[in-house]
């Protein structure tokens, strides 16, 4: 499977070429090149998937295939960063997801971005992102993953800040980068701790299940917690940063300042699930060495999910709603992983989580692209600037509806299947978890349909010019993704991706399924009542629960807390005093030495009085002093 290398190399080349030519080529050419390259690598990914899943199964277990693994940077005899390609079920699945969504977004952007300045730059960045993301998922070792992890962060920064003359975009880009960077610090330290004990970065060795790898960690603890928990916990912080888990979720809503296709690609479908992917990748370690951390992940995921869902209910910016919904859904995936066991039915959560990752990527991309289409039409992100658009934008309307149904978990759309598996896994873990997640699922259905009705139904808003359906380039991806969303649920996912890479037959837990469908249906019904026609109820509710409402619309003031920490504490109370200290203490002490010398110089100038008798006096005193000194010492 040597050709997999091309999947990485082509987007990189595309980035370099597009980046270097800058604006010398016409935008069309640049867009075509970018899209073409993506098309090729999408095809290659499908080929890989087909070849991998059909041919690399040994005794019912998918084997790991490593077509490339080159030593890139050697630290010590055992620790070296390799660059390579690791194919196993999850990475192959991710290849498919990433290339598909990326390809769709590339096509979509041809229509969406066509009038923007810096079209080439946009495509260059997209290529860079795709390259980094692909590199991340096929990483053969944890450090390669970290490298591409950082690259992904940077491309995200570049894309969020694409409208660099817009201060809010610049601020959002900065925020996204710094928050994730902070989390990456945890990741890095986790890697350091892990590699210190295991003496390897390689996933193959790390996840081999061989206890001798971690023999040196036995009984070693730091501050009362075992080092493996530390290592894996810290690594999870990295994942939590990228995947916008509480309390590191603050960057994601702001990241919506970027162009909408970018949000679809990076901040919905691919990059934000990197954290999930990371946990999945190291799942064998979590389950064996730090089950408590894994449970922690489940709780963090559940809380984040709930938290984001509540906020999503009150947001009015459609992209923000989608952003919070994304956070919430990633929470689902994390919960899935967190509650999972290993192997067979035990590993249901793992499988479900991956499945949800896959389906979510499709329908969330669809949602974003649909939202982009709407924004493109009405030139606004605000819900109350919309309404009644279904007449003008039928394709968008229908595809959006499909996506909403999928995310709400209505059969037979794909979201139903994956979410249902997660819920089953949760119930098996603990009933409380199951109930909580079911409620969140209900909330999801509610806010999604609130969104849907607000956009496409309700009172028509006056527009400067009549909204119209987008062109072919934008419609095609919508339709494609909608199709996938409809049918993806029927993929026998357990045959491809499971925690132990062996086959597993998914069985629908009818009780759980029916409960969740019921809850979802009720929520949808509620949303329909409230938002299909204009009504005063939502406003009333908002005023009744004004405290909760305003807290939720301010995202529970988490941003303010951060702002307080960064601005007030770090900037004003650490950095500023330090800068002051540097100038007025350290530097002043250096200057003080010079000043003292000068002062001393001034003080002793009277010795040089010009009086020759005084000179002789000093002379004599000097002589006597020397004589006394020598005789008596």
């Amino acid at each position, binding site marked *: 499977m040597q050709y997999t290398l091309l999947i990485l190399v082509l987007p990189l080349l595309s980035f370099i070429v597009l980046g270097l030519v800058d604006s010398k080529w016409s935008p069309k050419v640049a867009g075509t090149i970018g899209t073409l390259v993506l098309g090729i690598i999408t095809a290659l990914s499908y080929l890989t998937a087909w070849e991998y899943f059909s041919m690399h199964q040994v005794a019912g277990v998918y084997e790991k295939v490593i077509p490339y693994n080159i030593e890139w940077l050697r630290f010590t005899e055992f620790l070296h960063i390799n660059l390579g390609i690791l194919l196993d079920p999850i990475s192959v699945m991710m290849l498919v997801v990433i290339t598909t969504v990326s390809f769709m977004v590339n096509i979509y952007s041809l229509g969406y971005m066509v009038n923007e300045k810096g079209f080439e730059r946009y495509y260059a960045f997209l290529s860079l992102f795709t390259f980094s993301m692909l590199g991340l998922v096929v990483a053969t070792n944890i450090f390669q993953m970290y490298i591409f992890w950082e690259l992904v962060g940077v491309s995200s920064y570049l894309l969020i800040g694409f409208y660099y003359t817009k201060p809010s975009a610049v601020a959002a880009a900065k925020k996204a980068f710094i928050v994730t960077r902070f989390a990456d610090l945890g990741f890095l330290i986790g890697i350091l701790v892990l590699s210190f004990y295991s003496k390897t970065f390689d996933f193959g060795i790390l996840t081999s299940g061989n206890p001798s790898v971690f023999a040196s960690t036995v009984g070693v603890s730091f501050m009362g917690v075992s080092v493996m928990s530390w290592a894996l916990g810290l690594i999870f912080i990295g994942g939590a940063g990228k995947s916008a888990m509480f309390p590191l979720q603050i960057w994601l809503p702001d990241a919506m300042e970027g162009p909408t296709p970018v949000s679809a690609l990076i901040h919905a479908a691919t990059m934000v699930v990197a954290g999930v992917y990371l946990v999945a990748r190291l799942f064998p370690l979590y389950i064996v060495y730090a089950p408590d951390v894994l449970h922690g992940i489940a709780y963090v995921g559940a809380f984040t999910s709930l938290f984001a869902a509540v906020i999503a209910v009150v947001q009015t910016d459609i992209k923000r709603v989608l952003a919070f919904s994304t956070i919430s859904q990633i929470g689902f995936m994390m919960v899935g992983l967190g509650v999972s066991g290993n192997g067979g039915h035990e590993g249901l959560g793992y499988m479900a989580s991956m499945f949800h990752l896959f389906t979510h990527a499709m329908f969330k991309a669809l949602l974003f692209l649909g939202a982009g289409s709407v924004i493109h039409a009405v030139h606004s992100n605000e819900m109350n600037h919309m309404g009644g658009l279904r007449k003008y934008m039928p394709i968008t309307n229908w595809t959006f509806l499909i996506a909403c149904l999928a995310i709400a978990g209505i059969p037979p759309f794909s979201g139903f299947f994956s979410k249902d598996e997660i819920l089953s896994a949760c119930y098996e873990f603990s009933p409380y978890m199951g109930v909580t997640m079911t409620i969140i699922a209900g909330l999801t259905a509610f806010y999604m349909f609130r969104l849907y009705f607000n956009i496409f139904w309700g009172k028509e808003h006056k527009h400067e010019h009549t909204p119209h359906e987008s062109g072919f380039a934008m419609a095609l991806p919508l339709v494609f993704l909608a199709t996938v969303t409809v049918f993806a649920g029927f993929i026998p996912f357990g045959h491809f991706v499971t925690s132990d890479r062996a086959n597993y037959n998914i069985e629908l837990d009818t009780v759980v399924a029916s409960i969740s469908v019921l809850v979802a249906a009720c929520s949808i019904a509620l949303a329909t009542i409230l938002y299909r026609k204009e009504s005063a109820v939502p406003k009333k509710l908002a005023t009744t629960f004004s405290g909760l409402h305003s807290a939720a619309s301010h995202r529970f003031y988490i941003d303010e807390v951060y702002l307080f920490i960064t601005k007030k504490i770090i900037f004003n109370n650490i950095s500023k005093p330090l800068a002051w200290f540097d100038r007025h203490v350290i530097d002043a002490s250096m200057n003080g030495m010079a000043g003292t010398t000068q002062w001393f*110089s001034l003080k002793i100038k009277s010795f040089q009085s010009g009086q020759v008798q*005084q*000179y002789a006096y000093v*002379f004599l005193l000097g*002589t006597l002093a020397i*004589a006394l*000194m020598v*005789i008596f010492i």
Partner: protein
Amino acid sequence: MDYSSFLQMNEEFSLLMVMLFLLIYDIFAGEKGSKYFQPIALVLFAAHTLLNCIPRDAFSIAGGMYQYVPMQTYVKTILNIGTFIVLLQAHKFLNEDANRIKRGEFYFLTLSTLLGMYFMISSGNFLMFFIGLETASIPMATLVAFDKYNRKSAEAGAKYILSAVFASSISLFGMSLIYGSTGTLYFSDLATLITASPLTIMAFVFFSVGLFFKISLVPFHLWTPDVYEGAQTNITSYLSVISKGAAVFVLFTLLTKVFGHLVTQWQPILYGLAVVSITVANVFAIRQQNLKRFLAFSSISQAGYILLAIISGTALGMTSLVYYVLVYMFSNLAAFGVISVIENQTKKVLMSDYNGLYQTNPRLSFVMMLALFSLAGIPPFAGFFSKFFVFSAAAQQGYYVLVFIALLNTIISLYYYLLVIKAMFLNKSENPIEVVKSDFPVKLSFVICTLGILLVGLFSTIYDQIGLLSFGM
């Protein structure tokens, strides 16, 4: 008595002949002949220098009164070169109408101080030493007061003669006590007879302060800045380099050869003096505005550095000392040369006058900068090497703390040297010093100094040659 052995005093006789010839020539030369006075004087002196630069075997004459060791040739040659440079720099000054009549005296006095130093260096007896010392300092007083219509010059002369005589009388008293406690004045005998009795130590201290005065170490230095400021600049440079150079050499030989038994006494003395001299002089130098005073303090601190070589008391120290004097001579004479050239033409000696000098006189500023960098001990200039060797000599004997203090002081010294450089290169001035013209001899002196500063450090032969002879010390 065989007087022919006296003829072995080559240097002294040769110098004496030059002096006498010039004296007679100056008296009897007519209008026409006096035109050639300076060229002839310079050529003769150069010839004298060249003739006497080859070391001979050690000998001792007049019953040990006069002792020659080969190293002295180098020291005398260095003094000769220095004097030669000073004479070159004084060329223009002496050609001025007001001074033309006095130039015979100038030469005679200068050379007689040099002769005194010769004797001082080669002396093997305190009498000889004392005569040499006084021969070196009494004419110096007249030189300092050379410009007799200048109040400053007169004042400087008075200060110099009074201080000098005061110092030499204390020194003489010390000598008398040494004589009293040992019964001899010969260095060779003293070396064995001296014991560390309180009287001897007292005598030694009294005696040595006379030399400390000449080297102008703190606290015996107070006359230095005033005299340097008041004297005509060429004489100042002579005073700062030649007379000091001779004195440090003599101090070293006396301490090691005569007072070797008192080593435990004089090492702490020198230690303290070095620290005090370097520090106090540096601290004073920071504030100086008059460049001559400024260089006076600088030369005091340089003397402190030289003590580091003396304190080691080793052959290495000796070599380093002579080398240091050589380098110091080039650097200091270059600096004083620039000052004198400018002062002669414009009467400006303040640091603020030097603002923007580089715009009008790039060459002079360049020479000045080289000189100051060399004095500050910046590579690749010779001063760096000499400083390093001196420190090295002290460190070899374990004086790390002293070296450290000295090095910290180099920072202060670098600061004030940079102040001058700043004035010349960085500062802008409304009315900078006009373009200064200098005649050929002055230019020649700058060339010699510059070459000295640039090359002495890079060519190790010079040091090695000095080193070859220092083992006899």
